[in-house]
């Protein structure tokens, strides 16, 4: 990792109200930004998947599906990687999940309707972290971008 004045970072903050109908706007934005940076539409699609799952989870779990709350998404572009941070001020993730967001995938054998969001995020991203501080919970997702030379 390079650091210092030569390393530029660009930031975009996005906010939506906690309603599933708004999530596609975040997904499309992330899709285009990631696809542009990676020069690869499939990478764009995967980053869209990851951010949509994270925002859905914030709405569904942190805010129990209630509208009227705020979900914030921070996009940070470094020379060689993309970081997506999804934050809420609702109920924090249970430790059982929070402590293993960056570990080996769960068992795929059980076929259930739920329980796939975090798994998918972990498979798509290079690293995932969850932290709660002063009532603000954030899922941090990072992905290296291999640009064409």
């Amino acid at each position, binding site marked *: 990792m390079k650091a210092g004045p030569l390393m530029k970072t660009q930031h975009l903050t996005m906010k939506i109200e906690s309603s599933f109908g708004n999530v596609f706007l975040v997904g499309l934005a992330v899709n285009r930004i990631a696809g542009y940076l990676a020069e690869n539409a499939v990478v764009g699609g995967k980053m869209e998947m990851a951010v949509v799952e994270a925002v859905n989870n914030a709405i569904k779990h942190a805010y129990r599906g209630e509208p009227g709350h705020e979900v914030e998404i921070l996009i940070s572009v470094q020379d060689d990687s993309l970081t997506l941070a999804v934050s809420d001020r609702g109920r924090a993730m249970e430790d059982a999940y929070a402590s293993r967001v960056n570990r080996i995938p769960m068992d795929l054998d059980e076929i259930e309707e*739920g329980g796939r969001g975090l798994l998918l995020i972990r498979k798509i991203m290079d690293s995932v972290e969850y932290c709660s501080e002063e009532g603000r919970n954030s899922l941090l997702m990072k992905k290296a971008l291999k640009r064409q030379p």
Partner: protein
Amino acid sequence: MKLHHEMESGVLVIRPVEKRLDAAMAPSFEERVKAFIADGHGLIVLDLSPVEFVDTLGLGAILASRKALGRNGEMAVSGSNEIVADLFKLTGLDMVFPLFADKDAAVAALAR
């Protein structure tokens, strides 16, 4: 959610008219498909060719429909784009739903 549907060789082909099968669309999608199953349809092809994006809640709705169909019914998926196919693969659901390149191949497989 708007769904187009038609019968082909005894198979019900369902095609979403929307570009996304996501959290916002999943409940009405599931309701509509379950209504078809309650009407007695047992062979269903879900043609996703107009769909650009599916999330895990959309996937959950597809899976719930599959379960409602039961062991005597059959469901296949066709026309998924690269990123939707990736979602099926990343979640292991390509093992549950055979993915066909196009609707006709899916209908042929179920109509056998």
